[in-house]
């Protein structure tokens, strides 16, 4: 019973915090809009000026929605990888998966390759990122079969990340300036300048994927006991493994495609959530991670926008400052087991 109470409290706190971070992001920025103004505006008691309307609906709200979506996607992607590797130190960024996605997006942004019939540049970027994610994931898996030491695997992941970045830099050196500018902007990692069409596309990808992850709660829990036990309970391990990797790659690819590589969210959020809720049960953890992942990205984006305003930091700058120490702390605490 005590356990249930704790979980209820955690959910209440997470929901309140999410509401708070949304509000914070709505009101703060270069133009002051008070809570009162906004509430009155929404209720129709006050007419927004054109500027206010534009700021709200063309800048702030899309940005909030994308922070929520991408926060969820990164956190769930990290959660899946942690389940897969049975270790809390992995995430899409440290394993080099985000950088792999970036390399492939670079390939499309810097060259003129198009994929056959697909006209939409957004879908092209997303597909490129997915292919990049999957390829680097496969590379990591290949190494994972050789080394059973997770620290070494993380180092290998970081190396894969560097190689992918070097590949991207190589292409930049030979690309024309105008295209480079668009890549550099993109790869900073930012929720700014995200259009409604990007949001729609990512929602179409992220929401069903996350629902699918939630529906897989039962096998995900069994998987916590290791593949051999999971198999003995009746799970088709080979299929399940592919599903895990595919879902986590799609999620991190989607974020990388539209917001650039964002570091450490995938590690920090699932782990902190697990510690707070004190459970590994995916039925509880997945919804909790959805809430905390959204809040984490919202608060990080809030800091990115406001700390040195008018200069805007990249979101990765903020998430790294928060996330990297968590990873170090994790590694030190688990040294005995690694």
């Amino acid at each position, binding site marked *: 019973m005590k356990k249930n109470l704790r979980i209820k409290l955690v959910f209440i706190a997470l929901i309140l915090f999410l509401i708070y971070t949304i509000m914070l992001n709505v009101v703060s920025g270069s133009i002051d809009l008070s809570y009162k103004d906004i509430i009155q505006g929404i209720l129709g008691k006050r007419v927004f000026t054109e500027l206010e309307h534009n700021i709200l609906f063309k800048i702030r709200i899309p940005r909030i929605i994308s922070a929520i979506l991408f926060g969820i996607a990164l956190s769930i992607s990290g959660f899946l990888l942690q389940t897969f590797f049975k270790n809390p130190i992995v995430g899409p960024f440290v394993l080099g998966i985000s950088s792999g996605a970036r390399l492939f997006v670079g390939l499309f942004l810097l060259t003129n390759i198009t994929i056959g019939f697909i006209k939409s540049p957004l879908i092209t970027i997303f597909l490129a990122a997915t292919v990049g994610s999957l390829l680097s994931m496969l590379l990591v898996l290949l190494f994972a079969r050789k080394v059973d030491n997770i620290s070494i695997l993380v180092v290998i992941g970081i190396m894969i990340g560097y190689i992918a970045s070097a590949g991207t830099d190589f292409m930049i050196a030979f690309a024309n300036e105008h295209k480079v500018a668009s890549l550099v902007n993109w790869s900073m990692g930012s929720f700014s300048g995200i259009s409604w069409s990007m949001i729609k596309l990512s929602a179409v990808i992220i929401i069903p994927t996350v629902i699918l992850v939630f529906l897989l709660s039962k096998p995900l829990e069994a998987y*916590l006991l*290791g593949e051999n036990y999971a198999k*003995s309970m009746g799970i088709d391990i080979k299929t399940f493994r592919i599903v895990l990797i595919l879902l986590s790659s799609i999620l991190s690819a989607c974020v990388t495609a539209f917001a650039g590589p964002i570091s450490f969210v995938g590690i920090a959020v699932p782990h902190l959530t697990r510690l707070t809720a004190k459970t590994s*049960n995916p*039925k509880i953890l997945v919804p909790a991670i959805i809430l905390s992942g959204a809040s984490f990205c919202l608060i990080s984006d809030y800091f990115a926008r406001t700390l040195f305003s008018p200069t805007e930091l990249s979101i990765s700058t903020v998430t790294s400052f928060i996330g990297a120490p968590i990873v170090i702390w994790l590694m030190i605490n688990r040294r005995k087991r690694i």
Partner: protein
Amino acid sequence: MKFLLGKDLRVGYQKRIVVDNVNIDLNKGEVLCLLGPNGCGKSTILKTITDHVKLIGGSITVMEKDLNHLSNRERAKHMSVVLTERISPEMMTAEDVVATGRYPHTNHFGKLTNHDIKIINESIKIVNGEELKNKEFKYLSDGEKQRIMIARAICQEADIMVLDEPTSFLDIKYKVDLLNIIKTLSLEKSQTIIMSLHEIELVSKIADKVLLIKDGKIYNYGTPEDVITDEAIREVYNLNSGYFNTTMGNVELPKGSSKAKVFVIGGGGRATKIYRALHKKDIGFYSGILFKNDMDYNISNALGHKTIAEDAFIDISSEKFNEAKFFIDTSQVLIDSGVSFKGIGKANYKLLQYALEKGIKVMSLRKEDLGLNFIKYDSISSMINEVMSLKDS
């Protein structure tokens, strides 16, 4: 019809067959133990039965249903496992771990019904794990973890439970507990159990059937009474020196090399510890006059230079008595274990008198002095120290 039938199983990996021609047949509720030296293929056979290693040839059927034709879920309803691998899931209580055993029975969301919860609690009770259930699994001791993993397998409610070396890493108390649990499961729940064990002496206590394996070949299969013989164990385990006494269930090291200087009057199990203590210090000894139904007889035979023994329940013949006198004559010391001199044991009393008459030093653990002039000791160790000092002089 047999409940479980493994026919001409060929087990191993793509390029390497580990064991060929494995045939097993079990009734419901029977316990099968796989026995053999490290690396003989026990684990591979078990992994093949649980489908963690693909079967290369032959067939395994449960109630005439081919296991390989079942869906994963159906299979899971037939077979639960306790593996050698140690798991340490994050943030899961022992109860959470046990509950995962209900997997094949719960709905798509894994919702535990009241019925499921009842079975989980019962399973935990069988392994005496009530006080563990709310603790985090990761921090339990090896023995506790093993019990919880068995509870997990129990609550899967499969007809067959496969355990790979369940006793390794367990100390003696937990081994006994574990075997008790297994016995309960087989007798009361008609659970068919297949497991590998390291301890030869435990196998005959728990198994209905034994599969004895040597170097990738089935050495023998059958009831432990037929299969586990001193000779079979010596051959399967390549015991050139020392041996395993299957009747007593213990291991003996090879006999010492030094000349015998001590004669031990044993019997009633009183001398076993003396034999061991002498053997450890490499002091050779003779022993007599024992009866062949005495446990001392087995040990003395294994460790001593000469054991003079009479058939059980009859008076000691003068032939044996004279033989004993002969060996006493060549000894420096006689050790009296304190065995009863009453009834057919009185010949040993005469031997003791004989030694004293001959001026041989007699050391005794006996409380009463019987009017004889021997030196009394109250511990084996002080006596052995004395013998050692004699030996050096």
